[in-house]
């Protein structure tokens, strides 16, 4: 079958992929650099075709709570925003995680803190991978590096979210949100029927049918003993996810003496630097975590036994490096190169950072 190759922005790809996946509802609020998600959905009018609901909310606080309400009924529901808006959603995210609800949240990161800049950043790594809101929780975090992955991870995110009854976040940055490249969209899938939802999501708040008791979606439990049981259940799910869902990609690691670790679009800049370095005979490789939570701890630990040093490159002051260091456990030096405020390093700067920290690499 011939697949249609299209040229579009990462943000647009998310909108198209959401419709193709059969998403039931999108609730969002405009913020740069991801407004094209809502704009594209409004332009495509999926309510006329698949029946997907698209609504511009009055705030990110309202958006995430609309997601909470929709997800409670077993529907496939999503929102998208950028860093300051995601901060506003933290309360709702904590409730969605505690409610064990599947949902997809897209964060196209911009530089902070505060109102910050609209330019690309990865400074929400901690917020995304460590919970972000109140309480002990995690959710699955996928880091796309191409427009194709922006499209593909919509489906992956929802599939995992429903499999484990947990929110999933697509953690992108302004580069992959704004850039255009080729994308092949998935086949159109039908939205699930109410019967299917009742069968697959027996917990869903759908209106109590004859023969079943009330379904109550609450995150409140004043009895400490029972609340601890709830927490143990959340943690058991997280361990299962850590066991089964780590995703990553390795480039030129077979003979690598030095290793870059980078995610999202920055991994591509590192890869360009590596391609140039390899032409000069410098043996350097790249590990790109695709899931930031769960983190590819074991894989990095394995590579730490092979390489002489690790360079973590991020658009922040040093966040993922903490997880890399935990994985490496001091076996080899781990250094960081980061740009902030929306500055994106070019491949040469990335390579220079390796040589500055590991002079032996530049033989």
């Amino acid at each position, binding site marked *: 079958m011939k697949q249609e190759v299209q040229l579009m922005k990462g943000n647009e790809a998310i909108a198209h992929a959401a419709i193709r996946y059969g998403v*039931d*509802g999108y*609730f969002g609020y405009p913020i740069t650099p991801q407004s094209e998600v809502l704009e594209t959905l409004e332009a495509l009018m999926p309510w006329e075709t698949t029946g997907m*609901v698209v*609504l511009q*909310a*009055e*705030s990110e*606080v*309202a*958006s995430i*709570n*609309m*997601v*909470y*309400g*929709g*997800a*409670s*009924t077993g*529907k496939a*529901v999503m929102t998208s925003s950028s860093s300051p808006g995601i901060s506003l959603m933290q*309360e*709702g995210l904590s*409730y969605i995680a505690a409610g064990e609800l599947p949902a997809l949240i897209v964060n196209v990161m911009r530089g902070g803190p505060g109102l910050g800049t609209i330019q690309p950043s990865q400074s929400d790594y901690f917020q995304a991978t460590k919970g972000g809101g109140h309480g002990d929780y995690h959710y699955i975090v996928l880091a796309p590096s191409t427009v194709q992955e922006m499209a593909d991870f919509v489906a992956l995110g929802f599939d995992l979210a429903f499999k484990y009854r947990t929110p999933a976040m697509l953690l992108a940055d302004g580069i992959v949100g704004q850039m255009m490249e080729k994308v092949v969209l998935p086949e159109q899938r039908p939205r699930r029927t109410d019967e299917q939802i009742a069968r697959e999501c027996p917990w869903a*708040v*759908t*209106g*109590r*049918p*004859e023969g079943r*008791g*009330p*379904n*109550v*979606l*609450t*995150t*409140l439990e004043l009895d400490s003993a029972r609340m601890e049981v709830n927490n143990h259940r959340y943690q058991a799910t997280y361990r299962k996810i850590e066991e089964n869902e780590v995703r990553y990609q390795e480039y030129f690691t077979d003979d690598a003496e030095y290793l870059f670790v980078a995610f999202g679009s920055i991994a591509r800049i590192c890869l360009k630097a590596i391609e140039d370095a390899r032409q000069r005979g410098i043996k350097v490789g790249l590990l790109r975590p695709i899931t930031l939570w769960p983190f590819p701890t074991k894989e990095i630990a394995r590579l730490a036994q092979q390489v002489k040093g690790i360079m973590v490159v991020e658009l922040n002051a040093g966040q993922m490096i903490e997880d890399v260091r935990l994985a490496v456990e001091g076996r080899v030096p781990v250094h960081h190169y980061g740009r902030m405020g929306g500055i994106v390093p070019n491949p040469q700067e990335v390579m220079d950072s390796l040589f500055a920290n590991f002079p032996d690499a530049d033989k």
Partner: protein
Amino acid sequence: MKPEDIKRSENKVYCKPELLNDTPMHYCPGCSHGVVHKLVSEVIKEMGAEHIAIGVAPVGCAVFAYSYIDIDWIEAAHGRAPAVATGAKRLNPSRLVFTYQGDGDLAAIGTAETIHAANRGENIAIIFINNAIYGMTGGQMAPTTLEGQVTATTPYGRRVDLNGYPLKISNLLAQLPGTCYVTRQAVHTPASVRKAKAAIRKAFENSLAGHGTSVVEIVSTCNSGWKMSPAKSNEWMVEHMFPEYPLGDLKNDTER
């Protein structure tokens, strides 16, 4: 006469609503919540809507509403019930979706969600308990607290120069084209209970008919928070609350 002779359907003049379960309520004796819960249960049953009803509970005294009424419920974060209800209703248009909120939830922390849900004309019903105080957290000032009213955080009485004015949010909501029905009721006398029940039924019917947002404000007592007996609370409510929050329809525009 034996009890068996009395317990016959033709002799029945009153019974607990079928949807109200046997869980002991945590509400204080004399609190209006119990009566309103009963009305909500009765109306849903009488409409035959127990299989399509989705309630959205607030944070506040009614946080455990889901423990008492045997329908499907979602427990929202503080103030977010109208947004949660929006998500549920938009994706399930055939369902009877309603929120049950207090004054702090609806008119302080959730003001934005309330006004925008109403302004969009979401086909939901909002049951709004206004007792002019934060009951659950121990009697602090609410947005609807009266001028001069003593609360835990206004120990010398609410001063409008410091704390602003009692917020008549139902009057605000009645101005919005998205609302079809906004009414203010009470449940302190048998007559007022009957009227409040009719109002709740009308609001629920509007929701299913797609007329827009309906708001039923119930001016209520909080004898614990007000530090009065239940009987005295009712008197105080009539004397002080009703002049500020007069009962009656603020808007009844369901024939659009």
